[in-house]
C-alpha cells in the first residue's frame, strides 16, 4: 500500500506550457499514467512525448516510450474522455486557483498544484469552493506527490526515491529531496512522499497526511519536515501525541530566521513572536517526535525513532 497515489492513478495535466511539458515528459518516463492534458489553446492538437525510460520508476517497462497525449479544452471533457481521477496543475499563477476549482468541479479525487506564486486571496476563494466537495488538494507551491515505483506527480527527481517503508511529508521541496535521499541511502526507502507546499493557504496539511500514513499498512514510520510560520507543526505534534502509534521523526527549518522577514516561501515568516522554530521543535519533542538537529541527520533520526 501507499497513500494518495499508486499505479492505478490516472493523471491529467492542467497547463502544458514549457514547464508543464517538461515535467509531464519526466512523469511519463517514470511510468506515471498520464492520460490527458488540458490547455485551452491546444484543444484537440495533442502532444507527442518520447524518450528513454527512467528505470528508477515503474518496473518492467520497455527501454523507450512514445506517447501521444490527447489535449482537451476543459477538465470536464478530459475526465469524460479518459476517466482521469487526479490532476496536476502547472497553470501560471493568475489562473491557477481557477484551474484548481475547475478540477474540483469535474469531480477529481486529487488535485496536485505545483504552481508557485498564487495570490493568497485567490487561494482563499479556491479553498472555500472546495468545501464539501470530494476533491483533495495538495499544494500549491509544492513539489508534488510520489509513490516510488508506481506514480510520480510533480517536479521531484524520480531517481533519488526507493520503494520502502517510510512516509515523508514536508512543506519544503528541496528538504524533501534531502530526506528522501537519506532514506534511500539507509535502505529504508519511502512508501509515499508528499510535499504539502510552502504557502500560507494550502490544501492537505500535515495532520491529514499523518492520518493517512497511520492507516497505511506499509508505512512503518513517518518523517515530517516543517518550517517557521503558522502553527501547522504544532497541530501535527498534537496529532502525533494523541493519535499516532507509529514512530515519527522530524526537522524544522528556520531556527536562524530573523523575525518579520519572509524567508523565500510566502508562508515562512515569524511574526509577533509566533511561528518560531524553537516553539515548533519543542512541541514536536514533547509529542515524542525525534527531531533531527540538522537536515543531514533526518535519516538517522528516523532510524532512532524506529528503535
Amino acid at each position, binding site marked *: 500500500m501507499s497513500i494518495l497515489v499508486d499505479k492505478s492513478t490516472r493523471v491529467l495535466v492542467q497547463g502544458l506550457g514549457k*514547464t508543464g511539458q517538461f515535467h509531464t515528459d519526466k512523469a511519463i518516463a517514470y511510468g506515471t499514467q498520464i492520460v490527458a492534458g488540458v490547455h485551452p489553446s491546444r484543444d484537440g492538437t495533442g502532444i507527442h512525448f518520447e524518450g528513454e525510460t527512467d528505470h528508477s520508476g515503474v518496473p518492467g517497462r520497455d527501454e523507450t516510450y512514445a506517447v501521444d497525449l490527447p489535449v482537451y479544452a476543459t477538465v470536464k471533457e478530459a475526465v469524460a474522455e479518459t476517466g482521469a481521477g487526479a490532476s496536476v496543475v502547472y497553470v501560471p499563477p493568475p489562473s491557477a486557483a481557477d484551474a484548481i476549482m475547475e478540477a474540483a468541479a469535474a469531480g477529481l479525487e486529487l488535485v496536485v498544484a505545483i504552481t508557485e506564486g498564487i495570490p493568497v486571496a485567490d487561494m482563499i476563494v479556491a479553498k472555500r469552493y472546495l468545501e464539501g466537495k470530494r476533491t483533495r488538494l495538495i499544494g500549491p507551491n509544492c513539489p508534488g506527490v510520489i509513490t516510488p515505483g508506481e506514480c510520480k506527480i510533480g517536479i521531484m527527481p524520480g531517481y533519488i526515491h526507493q520503494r520502502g517503508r517510510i512516509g515523508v511529508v514536508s512543506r519544503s521541496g528541496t*528538504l524533501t529531496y534531502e530526506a528522501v535521499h537519506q532514506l534511500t541511502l539507509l535502505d529504508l526507502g519511502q512508501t509515499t512522499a508528499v510535499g504539502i507546499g510552502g504557502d500560507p493557504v494550502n490544501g492537505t496539511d500535515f495532520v491529514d497526511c499523518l492520518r493517512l500514513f497511520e492507516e497505511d499498512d506499509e508505512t512503518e514510520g513517518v518523517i515530517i519536515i516543517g518550517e517557521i510560520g503558522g*502553527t501547522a507543526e504544532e497541530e501535527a505534534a498534537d496529532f502525533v501525541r494523541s493519535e499516532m502509534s507509529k514512530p515519527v521523526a522530524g526537522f524544522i527549518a528556520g*531556527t536562524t530566521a530573523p523575525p518579520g522577514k519572509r524567508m523565500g516561501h510566502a508562508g515562512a515568516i515569524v511574526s509577533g513572536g509566533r511561528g518560531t522554530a524553537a516553539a515548533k521543535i519543542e512541541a514536536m519533542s514533547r509529542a515524542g517526535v525525534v527531531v533531527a538537529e540538522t*537536515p543531514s541527520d533526518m535519516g538517522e533520526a528516523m532510524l532512532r525513532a524506529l528503535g
Partner: protein
Amino acid sequence: MKIHEYQAKQLMAARGIPVPMGRVAMSVEEAVAAVRPLIEESGNPVVVLKAQIHAGGRGKGTFREHPETRGVNVITDGIAGGPAAAERKVGELAAKMLGNTLVTIQTGDEGKLVSRLYLEQGIDIERELYLAVLLDRSKSRNMVMASTEGGVEIEKVAEESPEEILRVEIDPAIGLASFQANELAHGLGLEGDAAEHFMEFVEAVSRAATDLDTELIEINPLVVTVDGRVIALDGKMSFDDNAMYRHSDIVDMRDETEEDAAELAAKSAGLSYIKLEGTIGCLVNGAGLAMATMDTIKHVGGEPANFLDVGGGATADQVTTAFQIITKDPNVKGIFVNIFGGIMRCDVIATGIVEAVGRVGLEVPLVVRLEGTNVELGRQIIEESGLEVTNADSLREGAEKILELST
C-alpha cells in the same frame, strides 16, 4: 510589499474610509507651507507632524542626530499663537526630522532615514481602539481583529490580556456580514452614532482587504472622536507580492529607498535574498533548504551572512548574480554553495559558479556541496576549472568545512 502611512490613508480615503486631513511633505518648505491650509480646512489649530518610514513604533522612537525629537509630534503652538506659531514649530521640527535617522523599536539600532513627512490635522479623541484585517492561516480566511486596547502593540495585548481581542472570520463568499460588524461594535462597547459609524468603517476595511490584496491592514489606533465619528488615526498596509501584477497603482507607491539595495537587486534577478549579520555567505536552491543551511551553519558554530534561494530553475546567469550579491557584502569571510539538484541540474550550477568566479573573482574560501541531478558532471566542471574549491558530501560536512576555512 509595504507602503507609507500617508499612502495607506490615500487608499482608504479613496474607498470612503474616514481618515484625518493631511498633506505629505518632502522638504521643510513643503511642511511649513502645508500648515496654514490644513488649519483652515480642518478648523483645528492643532497639527501633527509624522515621520514616514516603513516601521512602527514612531511615536516613541527618537532621532539619532536629535535625541529629544520624536518620530510623531503633536504641535499645539497654534492654539495660542495662531497659524504662524504652528508654522514656526513645524519648520523647526521638520528640519530635525528630514534627512535624519529615526530609531524605533522596530527599526533596530541602525534606524531608518526619514525623507518624507506627513502633516495631519489634530483630532479630539474620546477612545482609542485597535482594528486589523489579516489572514487566519488555520482557517484559510481573512479575519478582523479588534480590541479596546488601542495605541498599544497588539502583540502585547495578545500576551497580557488575550480575552480583550475580538476575532471574526470573513467568509470569502459573502464578505463581512452586518451581524458580524454589529457583534464587533457591541464587543467594543460602542453605542449610538459611534457604533453605526464603526460598522460602516469595519465593513469598508474588510472589503478593501479583499479588493486590494492586502496581507495586513492595521489601524492602531482607530479613534472615536468626541462627536461620535470613527477615524483611522494611524494606518498600515502591506500587500501580497504575488497579487501585485493586478495592482499597478499600488506598485507605483513603492518607495525603493525603504528597501535594502541588495535585496532589491536580487529580487529583480528572480532571486530571494535576505541580508543577515554573520560571515558565511550561502547560496542554496529551495527556500526550505536555504533556511536549513543557515541553521546548520549556526549549529556548527558559525553565523550565516545571508539567506539566498536561487529557486528551482536557476540559470548560470542567475547564479553569477547571486555570487556577485554575496561577495559584495564585506562581512563575508567564506561562501558555502549547497545545491540539491532536482529540476535544477548540478552542471548548470557548476557552470554558473565557474563563470561567476571568472567575472567577479574569489577572495574568500569556497565550499561546494552538490547532490542530485547530473552531480558527476557538475563536480567534473568544477574540478576541470582549476578553481580553489573544497568539496563536501553533505550539508553538515560543508558547514563544518566552510567554518574551519573562514576562521
